[in-house]
């Protein structure tokens, strides 16, 4: 899991997913490999049907790949692995539709992952309240999801994914249901959380313009294949938590110039 002193937080090795269809097998993901260092923010973008969701479902262990393997923090994660529940607890997932429980308040929703882990109620409530503060939702803790705006629901969903202190946060289209202004503030919050907690983030999006400013790498997915920088371009990201990170000094066109990346090669010249 160590590579030049950098922790490889996510390693996807030769992942393929094939669906059976009336017209024969359909390959949703084809021999996908990807490595993400600790503390990196990586965006995966691509058109609908390119395999983005399938990729995330494999990572969050909601779907079993046809072949290949995924390692998170050096340990294999798989929907079929012996202790799938334990493996799942190392990854926080923020879903596209927020997926909050209607029957619970904002606080109750954030407490849920802790209750699932049998954390005592008072301790869970304290911790959940702290995470709601982190996403600037402390004043909405007793509101039900139907009383919250889209952006507020997204913040609650992020707090819920973070409350168990996962090493990796996976976000599925975190801005697609939001207006540009709200999306911008969510993106800023993600960056703050990445900096303060050093959490590795993998973001699937089709609105790359909104997310590019905070991403270390952008990877394209098309027809089930990845193009772009499949291995970290920044070797110093793991030391970043707490330190300042100024993406502004790198022209976006250079930083995310997928065309200049040789498949399989480490493109240090991009940094």
């Amino acid at each position, binding site marked *: 899991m160590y590579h030049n002193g950098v922790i490889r937080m996510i390693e996807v090795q030769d992942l393929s997913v094939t669906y059976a269809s009336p017209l024969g097998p359909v390959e949703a993901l084809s021999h996908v490999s990807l490595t993400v260092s600790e503390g990196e923010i990586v965006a995966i973008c691509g058109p609908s049907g390119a395999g983005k969701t399938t990729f995330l479902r494999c990572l*969050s*262990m*909601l779907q079993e790949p046809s072949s290949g393997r995924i390692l998170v923090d050096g340990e294999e994660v798989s929907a079929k692995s012996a202790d*799938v*529940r*334990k493996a*799942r*607890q190392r*990854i926080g*997932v923020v*879903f596209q*539709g927020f*997926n*909050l*429980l*209607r*029957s*619970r308040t904002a606080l109750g929703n954030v407490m*849920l*992952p802790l*209750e*699932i*882990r049998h954390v005592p109620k008072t301790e869970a409530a304290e911790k959940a309240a702290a995470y709601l503060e982190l996403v600037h939702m402390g004043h909405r803790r007793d509101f*039900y*999801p*139907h009383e919250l705006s889209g952006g507020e629901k997204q913040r609650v969903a992020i707090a819920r994914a973070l409350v*168990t202190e996962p090493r990796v946060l996976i976000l599925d289209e975190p801005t697609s249901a939001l207006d540009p202004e709200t999306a911008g503030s969510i993106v800023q919050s993600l960056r703050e959380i990445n900096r303060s907690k050093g959490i590795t983030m993998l973001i699937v999006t089709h609105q790359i313009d909104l997310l590019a400013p905070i991403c270390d790498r952008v990877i394209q997915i098309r027809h089930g294949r990845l193009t772009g920088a499949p291995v970290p371009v920044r070797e110093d990201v793991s030391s970043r938590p707490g330190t300042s990170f100024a993406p502004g000094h790198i022209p976006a066109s250079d930083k995310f110039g997928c065309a200049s990346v040789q498949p399989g090669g480490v493109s240090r010249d991009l940094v």
Partner: protein
Amino acid sequence: MTWFSPAWFDKMGMLLLRSTLETLGMVLGSLVGGQVLGVALGIALVLVRPGGLKENRTLHAVLNSVVNVGRSVPFVILMVAIMPLTRLLTGTSIGPVAAIVPLTVAAIPFVARLTETAMLEVEVGVIEACLSMGATWQQIVRYVLVPESLPSLIAGAATTAVNLVGYSTMAGAIGGGGLGDLAVRYGYQRWQMDVMLAALVILVGMVQGMQFVGDRISARFRRR
């Protein structure tokens, strides 16, 4: 004697009250039993269905058939058919207490189907979110399926209660007692339309009241 005059109430009041309480007892008793067992069966149906959290096609086919068969047996026949069970559980096969047994048995598959429908309405995404948090299927039932479908389950309980009022009147036919029994004995057999009318009015009020209470409680939990 004038219908519904004070003198009439002196004579018939106790009879009507007694029958009303018998009906309420039968309905509430079987509602509790039917809900407990029916919700459990409904949860089982949701869990073992194809694509469910504890998929088991064989068990699903069996439970599904049990529910369908249970729902297609006419209540009058069901009452007679399960008399041995009724006698085993209550020591008798006549009277309001005995009638609770067939009423409960009739309610179970109905409640199971309503529960299944209500729980299938819970968004798959919410269940997947909890799975991704590492929840067990028991935790999904406890934290997601039951609380998220609670408003629909309560509305279903009101529907069930109303159906049970209807069924309980049939129980009168085998000596179950209650308002149905009263209406049949006085109204149909003795042509005493006043008693039949009074029983009918109470039944209508009972159904209205149950539906009203059910709607209110359901609305209190519905958050959308």
